[in-house]
């Protein structure tokens, strides 16, 4: 992945507009968060292959970035995004990594289901 170039990501997002697409959305602070620090809770959530259509998608912020996708009946939202790539299967991958290189948040868009 490379550091986010917001103009390029915006162009990539536009390609998915008004199409039925699949998303992978996750956020996590690690399964061991509570084990390593008594004050912390282990918190994570993911949706794999959520099937959505959005009519407007924007990237905002200034490293880290936010992405919001407006759907007919709601929103998809991710905060803390730092890196991006178009992978070998032409999918748009966005992720937020901490200083240790660990994933804290990820949002992927694809026209085909994720495996």
């Amino acid at each position, binding site marked *: *992945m490379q550091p986010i170039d917001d103009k390029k990501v915006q162009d990539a997002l536009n390609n998915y507009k008004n199409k039925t697409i699949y998303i*992978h959305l*996750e956020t*996590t602070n*690690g*399964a*061991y968060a509570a*084990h390593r620090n008594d004050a912390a809770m282990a918190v*994570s959530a*993911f949706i794999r292959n959520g099937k959505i259509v959005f009519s407007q998608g924007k990237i905002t912020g200034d490293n880290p970035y936010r992405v919001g996708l407006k759907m007919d009946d709601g929103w998809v939202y991710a905060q803390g995004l730092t*890196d991006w*790539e178009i*992978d070998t*299967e032409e*999918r748009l*991958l966005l*992720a937020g*990594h901490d200083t*240790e*290189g*660990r*994933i*804290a948040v*990820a949002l*992927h868009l694809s026209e085909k289901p*994720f495996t």
Partner: protein
Amino acid sequence: MEEKHVLVVFPHPDDESFGAGGTIAQFTKAGVPVTYACLTLGEMGRNMGKPPFATRESIPNLRKKELKDACEVLGIKDLRLLGYRDKTVEFEEEEKIVNEIKALINELNPSLIITHYPEHGVHPDHDATGRATVEAVRQLAKGKRPKLYCIAITKNRETVLGNPDIVNDVEDTMSIKVEAIRAHRSQTEAMFQKPIDENNRIKKWLKEEIFWLYQFQSI
């Protein structure tokens, strides 16, 4: 440590190296065959390398390769990938996993099984894997049950379980263990970049592998 065949059951690539790498290497060096049943590919791991070289989408294949490399280092010649998905083991039908592990036991007839201690695994996949493995062994006829070494990593493990039954010094296979941990590059690269004294602390922690012998109620 007179074993015929050892079956290791963990959910994530790298559990085997961190938790029992030295012990496994001791067995394989002594010519005892070791089979590793790994339930998932660690698809949802947080570590992507430091700096990150993997993505959520590329990590399954990378970790599969890292796992094969680690098995090679540890002398594990029989690796079974059970095809579950990281974080989801506890939500599967338990009976299905129990039956798969039971089939492995029937096929291999191991004298020893190593897994996680149920409810002392910290990660829900560890607990689910430990529960299914314990249940698979429990379902065998009493005289036919292999020994069951369980790894406990909760902070209150000694309070609840007492002292470990097996305290295994793995000084003699330490370099193999560290090499196996290194093979899981995406997961452990950051660890090896820590300052030397921190690394020494980690080495001390790696030197001993402790297990609790699972005690079945006498029914």
